[in-house]
């Protein structure tokens, strides 16, 4: 059975290859069957493995073949299976399956149906490899693989060059992180002599002391990779643009799975982070800053998917915060619950978009509660979980994070407070979304309702989003046990109360209208501030000025190949000499004689002088 673990990524991969090669020869139904079925089988296999594991929680490793072995460097294609892997695999295959199913309806009319599923299957395969990888190099393979799939899917509708731009941006920005991570890999190998994740931990124990600079640099480099992939500050700018892809893609890749890879990576290499407390703090700070920044931005967006995108950034910030404070279990837990409710929200928004002729602006929606009841309820549940209202899945995970953050020595309360502000904002913007879209008057009439292939995934995700909090993730073997002292009760009460306050504020502003904030928001400062937030804190602009434009400028300046100028100069000099000398060949014999006489004089001078 264990050997079959290799099949789990292989089946989607084969399905993907089949879809690519024989796209033209398959019916739509067959394409759908292949695309969904393969992930389904993977999900079933995962479930089987999970049941086995829960029965007999034994970590194992399956080596398929030696990937490369050069000198002392060796890397296998090998899969490592433990509780963390299981959680990730379950999320990927489970949520992935639902989203695939959803897609069959969502993408029904698209001409590139097969291509879509090919990419999506390939993504699932790559993501599985990422989380199953036994060593960092194979992980890197999956890491880059999901990046490319993300690129392909963001730019799926390639006819529009804006999509292409978004796709490229997504790839290149994450590539910056990836490169940092690759450097981290180089450093780790150079320092510790292996890239095998388990062996790394052991080697680190032998060679490193807590607080050394090497682990710090290595961890920061890995953090760089994680930041890129998980859209954290300062490499988050690609994610909102990545919403150009089909909505199920956003749900799967840009909410549930790929973007959380960074969280997974840090969790996976937490043994290294233990040697670098400063890196841990950096992780926490990055997470907190990101979550606040993104929450403010989400507050001002109009585009339903952008709101959700910023929300994703913000939520992943929470996960980073968790990782940074050593609450790994809580972080992974939040990863899982977030996958449920954010996938739900995205699919819901997908359903809306699908039925509203690709309308993205929330202010052109409204009153959909009655028109699209299934979607409404999904959204309600999703938003509740996102806002971490009590008893939803999000509540459990976020609560843990905040409480553990509070306990950190020194800066703990500050982290907690920051997290609370974020939670408040989250509640506000998520219910702003709900109230604006589903209540009030109907602005755009939906032309169809959701079919069963959309309803089933939505419903299942609703259940998960509600009940997911009760799942106990089997990661106790993976992470060191957190020393958990229950903090003061008021801390817990405040944590619970804040989201509720947020929902109420949202209600008062956006639905009830009791809270008149127009005067406040229309003030000059707030206007500017809103614009600032709306633009994503002008970070895109900053990058544009600092990096993109200079690079374009450089490329343009160099286009004509300055190095060649040197060779052109040589040519010019030769030609000039040629012209001078040719001019000397004037055809007049007297000059020729003069030249000879001159030569004679020189020869005589040379010979006579030396004697």
């Amino acid at each position, binding site marked *: 059975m264990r050997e079959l673990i290799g099949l789990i990524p292989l089946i989607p991969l084969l399905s993907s290859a089949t879809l690519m090669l024989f796209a033209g020869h398959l019916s739509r139904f067959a394409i759908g069957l292949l695309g969904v079925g393969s992930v389904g089988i993977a999900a079933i296999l995962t479930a089987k493995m999970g049941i086995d594991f829960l029965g007999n929680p034994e970590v194992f490793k399956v080596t398929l073949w030696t990937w490369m072995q050069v000198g002392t460097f060796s890397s296998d294609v090998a899969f490592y299976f433990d509780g963390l892997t299981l959680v990730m695999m379950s999320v990927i295959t489970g949520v992935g399956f639902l989203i695939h199913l959803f897609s069959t309806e969502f993408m029904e009319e698209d001409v590139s149906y097969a291509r879509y599923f090919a990419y999506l299957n390939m993504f699932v395969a790559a993501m599985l490899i990422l989380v199953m990888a036994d060593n960092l190099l194979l992980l890197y393979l999956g890491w880059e693989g999901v990046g490319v799939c993300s690129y392909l899917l963001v730019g799926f509708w390639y006819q529009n060059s804006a999509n292409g731009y978004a796709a490229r941006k997504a790839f290149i920005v994450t590539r910056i992180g990836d490169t940092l991570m690759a450097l981290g890999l180089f450093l780790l190998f150079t320092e510790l002599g292996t890239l095998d994740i388990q062996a790394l931990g052991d080697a680190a124990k032998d060679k490193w002391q807590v607080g050394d600079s090497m682990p710090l640099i290595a961890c920061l480099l890995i953090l760089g990779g994680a930041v890129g992939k998980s859209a954290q500050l300062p490499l988050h700018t690609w994610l909102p643009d990545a919403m150009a892809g089909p909505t199920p893609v956003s749900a799967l890749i840009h909410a549930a799975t790929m973007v959380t890879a960074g969280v997974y990576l840090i969790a996976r290499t937490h043994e290294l982070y233990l040697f670098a407390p400063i890196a841990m703090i950096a992780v926490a700070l990055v997470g907190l800053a990101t979550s606040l920044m993104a929450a403010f931005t989400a507050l001002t967006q109009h585009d339903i998917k952008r709101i959700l995108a910023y929300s994703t950034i913000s939520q992943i910030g929470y996960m980073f915060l968790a990782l940074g404070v050593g609450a790994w279990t809580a972080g992974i837990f939040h990863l899982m619950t977030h996958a449920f409710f954010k996938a739900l929200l995205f699919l819901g928004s997908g359903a809306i978009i699908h039925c509203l002729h690709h309308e993205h602006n929330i202010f052109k929606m409204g009153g959909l509660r009655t028109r699209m009841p299934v979607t409404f309820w999904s959204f309600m549940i999703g938003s509740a979980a996102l806002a971490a209202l009590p008893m939803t899945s999000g509540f459990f995970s976020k609560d843990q994070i905040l409480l553990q953050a509070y306990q950190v020595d020194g800066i703990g309360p500050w982290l907690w407070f920051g997290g609370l502000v974020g939670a408040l904002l989250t509640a506000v913007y998520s219910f702003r979304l709900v109230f604006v879209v589903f209540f009030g008057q109907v602005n755009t009439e939906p032309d169809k309702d959701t079919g069963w292939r959309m309803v089933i995934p939505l419903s299942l995700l609703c259940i998960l989003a509600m009940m997911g909090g009760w799942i106990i993730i089997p990661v106790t073997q993976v992470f060191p046990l957190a020393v958990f002292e229950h903090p003061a009760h008021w801390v817990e009460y405040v944590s619970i109360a804040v989201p509720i306050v947020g929902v109420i504020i949202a209600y008062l502003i956006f639905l009830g209208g009791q809270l008149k904030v127009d005067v406040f928001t229309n003030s000059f400062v707030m206007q500017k501030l809103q614009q600032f937030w709306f633009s994503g804190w002008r970070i895109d602009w900053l990058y544009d000025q600092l990096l993109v434009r200079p690079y374009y400028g450089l490329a343009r300046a160099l286009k004509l190949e300055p190095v060649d100028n040197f060779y052109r100069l040589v040519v010019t000099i030769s030609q000039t000499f040629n012209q001078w000398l040719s001019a000397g060949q004037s055809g007049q014999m*007297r000059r020729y004689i*003069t030249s000879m*006489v*001159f030569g*004679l*004089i020189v020869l*005589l*001078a040379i010979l*006579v002088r030396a004697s």
Partner: protein
Amino acid sequence: MLEIILFYIAATVALVSTILAMTRANAIHALIYLIVSLLAVAVIFYLIGAPFVAALEIVIYAGAIMVLFVFVIMMLNLGAKGDAREKTWMRPSVWVGPALLTIVLFAELLYVISSAEGPVSTGVVGAKQVGLSLFGPYVLAVEIASMLLLAGLVGSFHLGRRYLDRAPSSELGHQQEGE
């Protein structure tokens, strides 16, 4: 002593007449100066003990070869117009540069030659001695010289013969079209 004075006189005559020959506008005048120069050189030959060569210089050089020049000049019939043009060609801009070069060259030669030592001649090397040598070790040279003269003959025959053909008008125009 007389010989020595004679030598320097001959040398001066040779130099002056050569310079004159090189600077005349009229070809015939120049030629006559040249012949004078050759005769003066013949005198020098005689003085340094080479009477046979002196005779050859007069007979062949000044006599035969220069006469060839005379013939050609007469055939070309250059006339006064040519003389006038020659004068316009002799501007300083034409001769200053070459003259400087020449002076430098001469300075070098002067420096070199002034190091040559010894008297020029200890006795006469007469025709007999020359003849013996000529038909001894140098016999092949004579043969080759004959071939050389044959080449000169054939060449000038081929080239000169055409001049006697009815000369067409200048080919310049024709050629210019072709360029």
